[in-house]
């Protein structure tokens, strides 16, 4: 991989944005990133668009060219590439992009095995609930420990002005919420959100021409696995995360101990518990205990999901990986105010597609 740095970031508000169209969201985030990078259209070499389900939800394919067009870039005749990988679209787009503007847009999910899971009544929450039940059975994880993930992420989201839910919740609210798929209740589930994020990436040797605070992409890992949960080696581990994490840490010559701030894929509370284990922040089976003990809270051992995560910032499905990268870049630049992690030098993003059929891990570091 060539050496790449982030020189610009942008994102929209996340939430139910009924007044904004698909193209407006993509362009809003993209223009903010370009303004942040202080570059002009002529500086762009390519556009990578991470998007899931535009064809299904708005009957629109060919969205990479569409985004370039409505960004006023049609005359530049840039190569435009759309990338799809369930909820991991945006993260894969970053993986693919050597130099270019990376944009990503929202939408929903048909990322499970339709023929051998969904037709039998398996819901997205149900599949994660079965992983949660098994995790509780094998590792002694408790219902309260799962709830602690949601309480923490809402606390962080309350400090993020772009978050969908800027409101703290209590343990009792999580435990008393309507049941979705037991043991998971409503507050164990991230919402589905509108919103977009964008990054401008640049070859590291040229990054300082554009910014004094380039953030280097120092390692990336991308892995896949059996698409149906029942075919996986271990129901309490997302092997795609384990492999993607190892690849990213190896490429960056870093270890989990170097990471002080991480955005992980908490589409359900159990997902964050498994992610912090599978990324080796804590031993296997200890994710719930570590969360309960506050080890992943803001400015603790490793600050996990300072944006509020998918749970509180919002879950703009295909755009998730880019929104996570925007948060990490801002953390490493030191510009997120009340939710700033002090002394963060290395940050991580972790994004899942489906129930873990795809995982992508990126490591970022300050360029100075």
């Amino acid at each position, binding site marked *: 991989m060539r050496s790449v740095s982030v020189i610009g970031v942008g994102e929209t508000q996340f939430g139910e944005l009924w007044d904004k169209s698909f193209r407006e969201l993509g362009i809003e985030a993209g223009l903010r990133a370009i303004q942040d990078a202080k570059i002009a259209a002529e500086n762009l070499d390519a556009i990578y668009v991470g998007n899931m389900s535009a064809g299904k939800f708005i009957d629109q394919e060919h969205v990479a060219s569409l985004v370039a067009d409505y960004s006023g870039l049609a005359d530049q005749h840039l190569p435009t590439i759309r990338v799809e990988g369930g909820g991991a679209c945006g993260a894969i787009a970053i993986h693919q992009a050597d130099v270019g503007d990376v944009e990503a847009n929202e939408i929903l999910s048909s990322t499970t095995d339709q023929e051998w899971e969904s*037709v*039998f009544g398996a819901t997205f929450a*149900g599949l994660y609930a079965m992983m949660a*039940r*098994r995790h509780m059975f094998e590792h002694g994880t408790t219902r309260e420990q799962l709830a602690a993930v949601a309480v923490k992420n809402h606390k962080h989201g309350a400090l993020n002005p772009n978050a969908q839910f800027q409101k703290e919740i209590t343990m009792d609210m999580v435990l008393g919420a*309507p049941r979705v*798929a*037991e043991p998971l209740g409503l507050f164990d589930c991230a919402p589905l959100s509108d919103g977009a994020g964008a990054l401008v990436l640049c070859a590291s040797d040229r990054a300082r021409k554009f910014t004094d605070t380039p953030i280097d992409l120092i390692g990336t890992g991308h892995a896949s696995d059996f698409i149906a949960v*029942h075919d996986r080696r271990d129901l309490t581990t997302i092997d795609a995360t384990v492999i993607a994490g190892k690849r990213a840490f190896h490429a960056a010559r870093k270890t989990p101990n170097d990471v002080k701030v991480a955005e992980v894929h908490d589409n359900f509370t159990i997902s964050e518990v498994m992610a912090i284990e599978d990324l080796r922040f804590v031993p296997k089976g200890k994710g719930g205990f570590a969360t309960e003990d506050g080890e992943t809270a803001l400015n603790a051992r490793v600050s996990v999901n300072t944006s509020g995560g998918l749970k509180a910032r919002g879950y703009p499905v295909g755009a998730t990986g880019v929104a996570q990268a925007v948060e990490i870049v801002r953390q490493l630049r030191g510009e997120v105010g009340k939710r700033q992690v002090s002394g963060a030098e290395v940050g991580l993003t972790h994004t899942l597609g489906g129930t873990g059929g795809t995982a992508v891990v990126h490591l970022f570091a300050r360029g100075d």
Partner: protein
Amino acid sequence: MAIPRFWREIPSRYNLVGSKCGNCGALDFPPRIVCPRCGRKSVGRMERMKLSGRGKVVTFTIVHDAPKAFDMLKPYVLAIVETDEGVRMTSTIIDVDPAEVKIGMPVESAFRKLGEEGEAGIIHYGYKFRPA
């Protein structure tokens, strides 16, 4: 789900037909063309094999928020079952009080209606599991 997409899978959905690798002997359900353990060594050596339908619950959930097609069944038990042959599959557990379901509980397959294509479309059938 379009008719051919369902019809193609009838042997597995009705009769639990999986595959056995002629190279390593491992089983898969639904049948695969390539063994995930052996790769190219298995190509052309994957035999069809019917599973017993008997097994145990590996994990489960009680689904309260379901797609419209499953609305009448709510709340229902969704589970991953491991058959006696060591193959895992996802389906619902029927004829049981959801509070009685436990990890490790013995179950057997049952032929049931899975769903239908609207009010006038074809009816899908397949396997569910019940306590054994």
